[in-house]
């Protein structure tokens, strides 16, 4: 089993490095800096750190004003509160004017665990992806997180980066270079393609390995840039393997599955299956228990692949 590393730690530490390199980088948080790990930046650069208290709408507005004045604000809170709590503020103060604000939201998905429904962000990717001009990134491990944070700092415009609470096994090694807008082929196969994001990427690799024992040969694609999606890679996956399974810690509608389905339908329709949370809210429980209860494990992906391959043959 590969080493498990915290994505939030990677964010916090990378932000400090960026802060040293660029004095225009500023940080905002909403009383969660010990959880989002912006606390490292706050300690290093107190004058460039603005804890806005438990007031996400105001935080987003201040971030927009800073960006309109040439600063590069990183604003963090839990994914359930941004975009959830401050959707209109993100829409009018950031998205419409395409301001250079980076929202780094932690605690995405039901893998948050015991805190329960109020803290399970299962709609955030749908909400944020609906906003014109927003780029949406969901890293799969700590290495990809550190890379993505650097890339968004260097690219102008509104970005949303979704991180999860649990530590995740490393998918990449230190030589990995995050390429904005590009999907990454982690495994090459011919029977079906599993397209996964975030916490589901290592589960997808595990599923592909296990299916291989059954004689089924799967591609695994990580799509860290959810929006704009890598249309060429998705189309190629449809053409090459003729069947697609998506996997995400998010509702089935509006997230990865919906985005891929729209593109596949447009460019090269093939059978699809969706590993995601169905139209429901999850309850309290340990992270692993919830992933199992709501159908987000390697086993669920395997089952979806078998189903999609059957449809393909029909």
């Amino acid at each position, binding site marked *: 089993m590969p080493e498990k590393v915290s994505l939030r730690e990677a964010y916090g530490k990378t932000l400090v490095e960026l802060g040293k390199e660029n004095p225009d980088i500023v940080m905002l948080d909403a009383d969660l800096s010990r959880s989002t790990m912006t606390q490292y930046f706050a300690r290093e650069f107190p004058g460039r750190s603005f804890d806005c208290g438990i007031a996400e*709408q105001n935080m987003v507005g201040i971030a927009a004003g800073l960006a309109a004045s040439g600063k590069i604000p990183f604003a963090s809170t839990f994914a359930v509160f941004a975009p959830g709590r401050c959707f209109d503020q993100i829409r*009018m103060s950031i998205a419409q*004017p395409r301001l250079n604000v980076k929202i780094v939201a932690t605690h995405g998905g039901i893998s948050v665990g015991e805190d329960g429904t109020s803290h399970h962000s299962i709609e955030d990717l749908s909400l944020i992806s609906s906003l014109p001009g927003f780029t949406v990134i969901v890293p799969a491990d700590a290495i990809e997180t550190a890379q993505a944070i650097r890339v968004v700092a260097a690219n102008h415009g509104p970005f949303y980066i979704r991180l999860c609470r649990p530590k995740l096994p490393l998918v990449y090694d230190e030589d990995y270079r995050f390429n904005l807008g590009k999907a990454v082929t982690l495994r090459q196969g011919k029977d079906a393609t599993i397209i996964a994001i975030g916490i589901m990427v290592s589960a997808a690799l595990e599923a592909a390995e296990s299916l291989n024992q059954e004689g089924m040969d799967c591609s695994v694609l990580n799509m860290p840039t959810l929006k704009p999606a890598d249309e060429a890679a998705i189309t190629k996956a449809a053409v090459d393997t003729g069947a697609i399974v998506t996997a995400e810690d998010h509702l089935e509608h509006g997230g990865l599955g919906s985005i891929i389905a729209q593109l596949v339908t447009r460019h090269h329709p093939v059978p699809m299956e969706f590993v995601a949370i169905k139209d429901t809210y999850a309850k309290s429980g340990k992270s692993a228990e919830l992933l199992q209860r709501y159908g987000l494990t390697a086993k669920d992906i395997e089952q979806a692949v078998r189903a999609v391959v059957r449809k393909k043959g029909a």
Partner: protein
Amino acid sequence: MSLPESGNSSSKTSAKSAKAEVFSSTAKTKVTSVKEMEAIAKRLRRHIISMIGKAGSGHPGGSLSAVEIVTTLYFRLLRHKPQDPQWPDRDRFVLSKGHAAPLLYATLAECGYFPVEELATLRQLDSRLQGHTDRTVTPGVEMSAGALGQGLSFGIGIALAGRLNSQKYRVYVLLGDGECDEGQVWEAAMSAAHFKVDNLVAIVDNNGLQIDGWNCDVMNLEPFNKKWQAFGWHVIEVDGHNFTQLIDAFEQTKLVKGQPSVIIAHTIKGKGVSFMENNPDFHGKAPNAEQVEIALKELE
């Protein structure tokens, strides 16, 4: 009273008579006499009526109530360069009550940010003058607004950036009184005092009316002055149609250190047009051709 250095030519020309063609400009941004400001205010009101009348929709009431406030800022107080709208050291005016866009457009045109003739395109397809302000298309517009309650937070961000950069610019945010129903305004009010942004001034266009009626009936704001004080602001109340009081208040805010200032400007919604004054019907309704004619006659 000493005035800030203007980034513009300070040459004086007399304001054109009130009978001047509606869409023509005085094209200067620094005047000193109240008499001149009164003439400009009248011109802005004429523009507002003509623009909204031509567009067939828009918000005359809350545009007319804030004319003296915005005139004082743009023609007396702000350091700005209409030829260089992105000048980094400009004072910032953030129109949080974005439905008063016609007032801001008329003012920017009179200052020379774009041709006065363009005012006639308000709300038309492909116009730079959108129904509510859009910072991506209109020269001189700092914020995309219209969804109420967001401007004060935006202004705090600009003020903090100025402080971080050791820039001397000041930030002025115009809010509506009805807008202060929004919770975000008070989140922002709390944080502005917390961050001690003394380069930030909020002005509330306190015309007493919102769409559904009088503030006190729809959602009571009182005790309004005490609320701002309790949130840590330096509070000044003025007659929002009195230039001398407005100038004095703005000058006073420059002396306030360590806390933000708010000017509660008591105004009359629809000010200057008899049938629009204190009439909530004209919050978001355009005058018809006949009403435009009557209004312009009143504003001669």
